[in-house]
């Protein structure tokens, strides 16, 4: 007689009449393949845990976002937000699809140059640009997005010294009816700071003001907020035209579109409440088109969308290390995926799927990572079928920020692969070694003598 498939015995109390916001099963089907590539074979080949990206999904995301904007507005340019995911292979896909680069540090700037992006197609944002960074950006004719007055004055001095007129934009923050208001970056619209900065730039004549930039927040669930921002940006651009007879070449509406992930504490899943990119596009494009630009003065619309274009293209595969029972009777499962490589688990309840067949019974489980730290919690409560040590899981929607914010903490960072359209995995980054981690470490001579 053939033996039956074994599943860990579970007993689960039945509660009637009680709402359970965690009651939905995470997944009804196992995820055994990603874009046709076997989860278990990839783990066997590249090790566990493992980041996996879908090239098809990335291209589909950027193409559909472009379509949403280009069908509503005549001049649209996307710039890939490097901080969201700056693996060179990922950036290259966006650049192949026509995206410029949007960077917020010299490291990212150099990465964009390394990826073959022409200097004049790198938008240099962020509050931290050294004199050397500004000189490099001026040399490469990159649009510099000025964040504060100190930067404006330094840039003016450098431009005077070099006798050049750098292409600049100012970053503007504003009240769009969303709390908390992002006012730490750029110049405020309502208080008149933005106009002060514009006046200073125009008065000196040392800088070439070609753009206006805003970025109203992150994981924004309200497309209307972008409509408000669009009107205010257009008001500034039209005001500059009227006051200085200068045409603003572009309005950069930044990013912040929500991905389909579920925020912690959200009653409904992200897939049910997050607006489509087309809804953001409708709000932004309508506000700009209705703002009163003369036809020839319509600025190019720049978008720095990151999260919404990459999050659902990334998966994190891992392995169950052990199961245990907590003192209050809850089940706990320990994974080899820790918060050091899944930083977004601090604010998302990620969707998690087993990577092998399972039965119809489930149990509430706490998912812990492997780190010997109390904060290492991947999911505080998730309903999953029973899994045994050695079983595999797939964590969804990890394409944004998890790679760039991952750190070597207690354990090393894993490999990253991308699956192409023919279901072939390709290595984007090898798993780290102790040698990688210690490459820049030094031990002074007097500390080298170990008594043990």
């Amino acid at each position: 007689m053939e033996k039956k498939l074994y599943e860990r015995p579970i007993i689960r109390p039945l509660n009637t009449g009680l709402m359970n916001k965690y009651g939905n099963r995470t997944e009804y089907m196992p995820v055994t393949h990603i874009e046709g590539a076997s989860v278990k074979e990839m783990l066997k080949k590249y090790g566990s845990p493992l980041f996996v990206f879908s090239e098809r999904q990335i291209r589909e995301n950027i193409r559909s976002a472009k379509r949403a904007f280009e069908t509503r507005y005549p001049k649209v340019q996307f710039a890939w937000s490097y901080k969201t995911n700056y693996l060179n292979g990922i950036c290259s896909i966006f650049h192949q699809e026509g995206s410029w680069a949007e960077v917020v540090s010299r490291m990212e700037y150099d990465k964009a140059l390394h990826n073959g992006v022409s200097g004049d197609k790198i938008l240099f944002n962020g509050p931290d640009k050294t004199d050397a960074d500004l000189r490099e950006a001026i040399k490469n004719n990159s649009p510099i997005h000025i964040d504060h007055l100190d930067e404006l004055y330094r840039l003016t001095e450098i431009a005077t010294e070099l006798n050049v007129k750098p292409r600049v934009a100012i970053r503007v923050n504003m009240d769009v009816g969303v709390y908390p208001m992002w006012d730490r970056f750029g110049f405020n619209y309502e208080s008149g700071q933005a106009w002060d900065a514009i006046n200073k730039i125009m008065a000196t004549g040392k800088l070439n003001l070609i753009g206006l930039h805003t970025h109203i927040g992150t994981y924004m669930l309200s497309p209307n907020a972008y409509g408000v921002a669009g009107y205010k940006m257009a008001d500034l651009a039209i005001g500059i035209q009227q006051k200085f007879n200068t045409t603003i070449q572009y309005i950069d509406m930044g990013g912040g579109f929500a991905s389909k992930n579920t925020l912690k504490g959200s009653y409904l899943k992200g897939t049910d409440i997050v607006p489509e990119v087309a809804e953001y596009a409708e709000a932004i494009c309508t506000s700009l088109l209705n703002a009163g630009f003369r036809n020839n003065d319509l600025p190019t619309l720049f978008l720095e969308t990151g999260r919404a274009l990459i999050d659902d293209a990334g998966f994190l595969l891992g392995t169950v290390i052990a199961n245990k029972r907590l003192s209050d009777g809850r089940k706990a499962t320990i994974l080899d995926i820790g918060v050091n490589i899944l930083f977004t688990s601090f604010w998302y309840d990620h969707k998690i799927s087993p990577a092998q067949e399972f039965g119809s019974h489930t149990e509430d489980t706490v998912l812990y990572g492997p780190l010997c730290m109390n904060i290492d919690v991947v999911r505080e409560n998730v309903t999953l079928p029973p899994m045994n040590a050695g079983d595999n899981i797939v964590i969804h929607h990890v394409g944004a920020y998890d790679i760039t914010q991952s750190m070597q903490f207690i354990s090393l960072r894993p490999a990253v692969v991308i699956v192409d359209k023919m279901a072939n995995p390709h290595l984007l980054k090898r798993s780290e070694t102790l040698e990688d981690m210690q490459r820049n470490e030094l031990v002074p001579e007097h500390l080298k003598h170990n008594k043990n």
Partner: protein
Amino acid sequence: MKLRKNVAISDSGFIFNPSTGDSYSVNPVGMEMLTLLHEGTPKEKIKSQIMRDYVCDESTFEKDYYDFTLMLRNYKLLEEDE
């Protein structure tokens, strides 16, 4: 170790404890273990039967049996003298 005598076990894996009014569901392996415990089957016999019928090694059985009976005790489904 034995289940309370008055605990009702249905064929579909539905468990009812009339002492408390609580009900539970179990998966197939859990159902089999519960039924054997209800019959007063000793642990060694339960082990040999599970390992005979399922793809399960001894150490897996040991830790799962320990965890399962821990939960039965937690839900007050075992005889009090245990």
